[in-house]
């Protein structure tokens, strides 16, 4: 600004800006690459850790196809599907949270705001009440019911927050989401009191977020959601940047605010609901990963979205591995480990960064 009087200073300033931009791009790229490398390493290490241990050469041998039947069974049938499910669920929840915080412009927004966790949780409890914890009709009944619960809750939030002519203003969406969440939570409390010990234990674990889907079937069930929704969301990175500026600015910049918002909210709901259906209630990822991402690479969604997805994937897969091995052979729910590992790191970033 001071340079505007002297043309020499102006160009200097511009050069500085350019250099700063280049540095930033480079830094962002580095961070994304680091995240990706960490994720790859995590897959490798997680396949290695567990009740049955392998040495590093063994793992190489198994991955390249030279394993015995037993080794193949452990790595490819037990561990890999679970690792992949946790990666997909983490990425989906993180993306969902990132979209929501962008769309409603509130730091506290997470997929729970759309009623996803509450709706899914309610149906899980109802299922457990009527069918018990042992008699699963099929491995897909529970995830399917959870998905339906999440879908119905989200639809209710959207319908109640929608107003003709104004669409879904962010503030109305937030308040409606909170109200629906509280209402369903109240129903849940009434039901939870009536559960017996086993049922309660199951529900408590589900609420704390334990990944139960650990076979290739679940991977196949989860993958299409991401394959369809992630490209859609990535293609909307500019819209998300613009929506961040507020409805009126976004509208005058030419965004069709309500239409874009509806699409993005649906995508966020789909991502989170599929992840919650299979991964349980790991809501913390959706809240924290976007903030971590923003602190690492800034607010531009072109870089922010992939960073969030990678961070979410790393966070959940690492947490899931810790959850698997820390109190072997029993398990503590993954969601608990996610919060215990993720929160201190986030608080560290909060204390370090100025903005």
């Amino acid at each position, binding site marked *: 600004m001071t340079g505007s009087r002297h043309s020499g200073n102006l160009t200097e300033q511009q050069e500085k800006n350019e250099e700063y931009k280049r540095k930033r791009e480079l830094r962002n790229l580095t961070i994304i690459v680091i995240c990706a490398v960490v994720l790859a390493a995590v897959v490798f290490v997680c396949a290695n850790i567990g009740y049955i241990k392998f040495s590093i050469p063994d793992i190489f041998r198994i991955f390249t196809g030279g394993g015995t039947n037993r080794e193949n069974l452990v790595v490819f049938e037990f561990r890999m599907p679970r690792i992949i499910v946790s990666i997909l669920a983490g990425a989906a929840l993180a993306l969902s949270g990132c979209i929501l915080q962008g769309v409603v412009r509130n730091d506290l927004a997470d997929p729970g705001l759309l009623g996803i966790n509450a709706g899914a949780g309610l149906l899980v409890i109802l299922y457990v009440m009527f069918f018990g914890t042992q008699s699963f009709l099929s491995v897909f009944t529970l995830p399917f019911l959870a998905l339906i619960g999440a879908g119905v809750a989200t639809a209710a939030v959207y319908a*109640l927050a929608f107003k003709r002519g104004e669409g879904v203003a962010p503030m109305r969406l937030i308040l409606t989401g909170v*109200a629906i969440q*509280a209402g369903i939570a109240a129903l849940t409390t009434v039901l939870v009191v009536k559960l017996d010990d086993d049922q309660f234990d199951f529900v*408590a674990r589900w609420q*704390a977020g334990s990944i139960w889907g650990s076979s290739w079937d679940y991977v196949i069930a989860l993958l299409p959601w991401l394959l369809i929704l992630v490209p859609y969301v990535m293609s909307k990175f500019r819209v998300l940047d613009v929506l961040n500026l507020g409805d009126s600015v976004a509208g005058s910049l030419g965004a069709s605010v309500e239409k874009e918002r509806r699409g993005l909210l649906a995508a966020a709901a789909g991502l989170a609901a599929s992840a919650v259906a299979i991964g349980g209630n790991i809501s913390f990822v959706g809240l*924290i990963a976007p903030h971590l991402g923003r602190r690492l690479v800034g607010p531009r969604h072109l870089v922010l979205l992939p960073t969030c997805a990678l961070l979410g994937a790393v966070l959940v897969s690492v947490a899931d591995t810790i959850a698997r091995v820390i109190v072997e052979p029993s398990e503590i729910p993954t969601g*608990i480990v996610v*919060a215990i590992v993720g*929160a201190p790191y986030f608080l560290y970033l909060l204390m370090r960064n100025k903005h």
Partner: protein
Amino acid sequence: MTDNEEFANGQPPVRNKSRAGLTGMILSVGLLSLFFLMAFSITKGAVKIPLSAVWDAFFNFNGNDIQHLIVIDIRLPRAIASALVGAAFAVAGAIMQGTTRNPLADSGLMGLNAGAGFALAMCYAFLPGLSYMRIIIASFLGAALGAALVNGIASFRLGGSTPTRLVLAGAAVSMFLIALSQGIAIYFEVAQDVMFWTVGGVSGSTWEQVGLIAPVILIALALSVALSRSVSVLSLGEDVAKGLGANTALIGVFCSVIVLILAGTSVAVVGAVGFVGLVVPHFVRYLVGVDYRFIIPCSAVLGALLVVAADLFARNLNPPFETPLGATIALIGVPFFLHLARRQKRAV
């Protein structure tokens, strides 16, 4: 009254005066209804007690009459505890929303609920058989620990805490403590005990408890009314508040302490029924506008009304069983909140 005179003179009503008049009306009508609702709630319950017996219990107490004992030793402390806790949660929520400028903020954001829950899980896991009073005190200490963590982390950096940092630190610390207590509860198999304590609400309130919390909450309520002007200034945003000459850091500290006292004691006694702190300030803001000198007293009265009514429902929906207090609060609060969400214009 002044409003009517102004209208009669054909003058346009002065906006702030009409707000003050409305506030006065809400306060007087609210207090009156609170009194009648409490009297009504004392007569209702698993055992029906006629009003005449209630009257006798107050003015003609007979220690051998079971009805008199129920009124004086069970229902009255319970009604008073509900009113106190409701007022405390609502005012704490109003202060939080005003100072953080976030419509999602309530006292849970200060780490209070999570801290109390953590202490509770620790008590059940490691010190089983602790007395009722000790659990309450431990819960309050847990709430204080949560608040200290949140505020400490938010203001760690030079320049002190800003609302955004407070909100984020609060969310993260809460998640952390909740995860710890869930982990402890599941691992030591006390999750169900913890849950039953949390849904218990104000059942089992005694005069001992009321004697402990009443002075604390009443003093804190008075302090928050005294502080309401500063909260209004802070709710305009930190920059504006500084421009108006407010010492934002100092006000922030005061507000945090008051919220801790109000919500910390309440959480310790009834568990996390935080929805009161969310819904009541929103509703009051809808009625009386954005001035916290009006919002805070009205929140106190309406919060007390809400919890007394909710406890009345909790006891009478399915007697002799009690419906969880959190559920009945949501039952009353959620429709209001949905209505507000559709009507709202300005948020905080």
